[in-house]
């Protein structure tokens, strides 16, 4: 076998749950430590080695100028960068601020918001640097994480399914909660990966793996509404852990418009495409 790849686990704004997923792989953890060289994983080890890294697993979203700089450095040091989880992939639940009055948000939590340097937005890693692979989920799924690690160890390009949550739901024999009980469920427009847990626990999927490929959100939300949810609540339903994913963000804004309470996206994000692409170019020089 060739040299073990070096692995770094890095964190930005997040709850630590996605990196914990690695520590929660109790049966595989010691094997992972054999298969890869863990060179930076602050949550698990005091030995923090500098880059370059073969693989960086990145958790969390970018919410402070300092984090943005840390990320740029990490990208420069990493060959293959994988975002793990909804925060890194879509901005996380904290991206709700992108649609709100940030100053007011800060004031409601901190008496002296001026002590804290923070961006008014929470943006995914891909808004700042090139991302090589995304692992969805809030939190990510252990099996998917191990699959990605195994693929990278073997030198294969990782791959995860893009099917909808409904498919594992049906394969595990769960009775559809929408059809049998009129429970609101985002399964049909959400990417699979979690194992379709929620419907198996008698509740609707809340979309923590983010939008599926080509989701038909207008049809989905029309169904939510015809099944009794009001338009504003349907918008809120899409605005959780992947609120800033393009598909959910776009549809929730449309719904707020209909509900007569249009939300304002933070001005800096209006041009995000711009800064995004120029950023990627900068990184590739």
């Amino acid at each position, binding site marked *: 076998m060739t040299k073990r790849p070096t692995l770094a686990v890095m964190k930005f704004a997040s709850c630590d749950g996605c990196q914990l997923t690695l520590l929660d792989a109790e049966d595989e953890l010691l094997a992972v430590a054999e298969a890869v060289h863990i060179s930076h994983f602050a949550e698990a080890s005091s030995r923090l080695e500098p880059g370059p890294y073969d693989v960086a697993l990145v958790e969390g979203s970018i919410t402070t100028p300092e984090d943005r700089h840390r990320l740029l450095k990490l990208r420069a040091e990493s060959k293959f960068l994988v975002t793990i989880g909804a925060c890194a992939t879509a901005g996380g639940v904290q991206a709700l601020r992108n649609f709100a009055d940030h100053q007011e948000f800060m004031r409601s939590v901190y008496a002296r918001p001026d002590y804290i340097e923070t961006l008014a937005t929470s943006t995914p890693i891909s808004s700042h640097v090139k991302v090589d692979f995304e692992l969805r989920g809030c939190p990510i799924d252990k099996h998917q994480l191990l699959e990605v690690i195994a*693929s990278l160890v*073997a*030198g*294969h390009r990782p791959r995860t399914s893009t099917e909808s949550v409904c498919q594992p739901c049906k394969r595990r024999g769960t009775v559809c909660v929408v059809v049998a009980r009129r429970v609101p469920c985002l399964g049909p427009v959400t990417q699979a990966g979690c194992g379709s847990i929620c419907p198996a626990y008698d509740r609707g999927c809340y979309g923590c793996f983010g939008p599926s490929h080509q989701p038909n959100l207008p049809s989905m939300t029309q169904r939510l509404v015809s099944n009794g949810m009001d338009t504003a609540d349907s918008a809120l339903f899409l605005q959780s852990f992947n609120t800033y994913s393009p598909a959910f963000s776009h549809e929730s804004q449309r719904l707020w418009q209909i509900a007569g309470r249009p939300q304002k996206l933070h001005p800096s994000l209006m041009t995000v495409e711009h800064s995004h692409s120029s950023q990627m170019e900068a990184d590739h020089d």
Partner: protein
Amino acid sequence: MITTQDNPKIVANPWLSHSVVIDAIQQEIESVATYQMRFVDSHVAQGYRFQPGQFNMLYIPGCGESAISHSGPPSLDGNKIVHTIRFVGRVTDAIAKLRVGDRLGVRGPFGTAWPMDRCKGRDVIVVAGGIGLAPLRPALYSFMENRDDFGRVVLLYGSRSPELLLYAEELESWKERGIEIQVTVDRATESWQGAVGVVPLLLDRLAGLKPNFTEVVMCGPEVMMHYSALSAIKRNIPKESIWLSIERNMQCAVGLCGHCQLGPVFVCRQGPVFRYDAIENLLKVRDF
């Protein structure tokens, strides 16, 4: 034409792959290489036969399978399996990392073959685009090995640019063995002396064509095949004499998984080689 449908029932695990070992690797052009492999189990090797146009499923455990056509002489058994592979994604990139002596899995052969019997005694126009020359090479070898059984054999071959011409050195020797060859490229380089333009143009201009004594066999991008078929028809070649090999997603290769459907046909079983009139209408439907 042989289809697996004509065979007696096979109640064996269709997924069972056999170990092969790589004996030689020849880098052809950028991102394309030819592999020569042999079944590790000598019984399997001796019992293995294929027809030009048929394909194997190559398997890298832990990564996946890819459908790859035979590109070697059809006289060979399972001690010398030849595949020319373009590296385009997960599985083929993993194949690219293999070295002589490494092992992988192979199951096959699957699918229909080029109409070699029908070609006997007739002229044959071989139309190839890019990597599409690989699946046609076994047929070309057959023509050369049994040169007297066939009439005029013309190869019309196009690629995007001169560096991307597959089997460039071999082409010269084929000429010596009685194959007329015309080559065209989409984009010429300074040193390029040959034709520039798309393959169908070569067919439009081909001299001495005897429409009723000709079979056309083609493989390449679907658009290229579409226009080449139109050119052939314009030149009065009957649809029943036009053959093409097409690509679809394949998982099982034996008609059980559903992936390769093109309307009513299973490409793995009734194809990949089809007579043009059998799928003409299907290919015209966008996204079908």
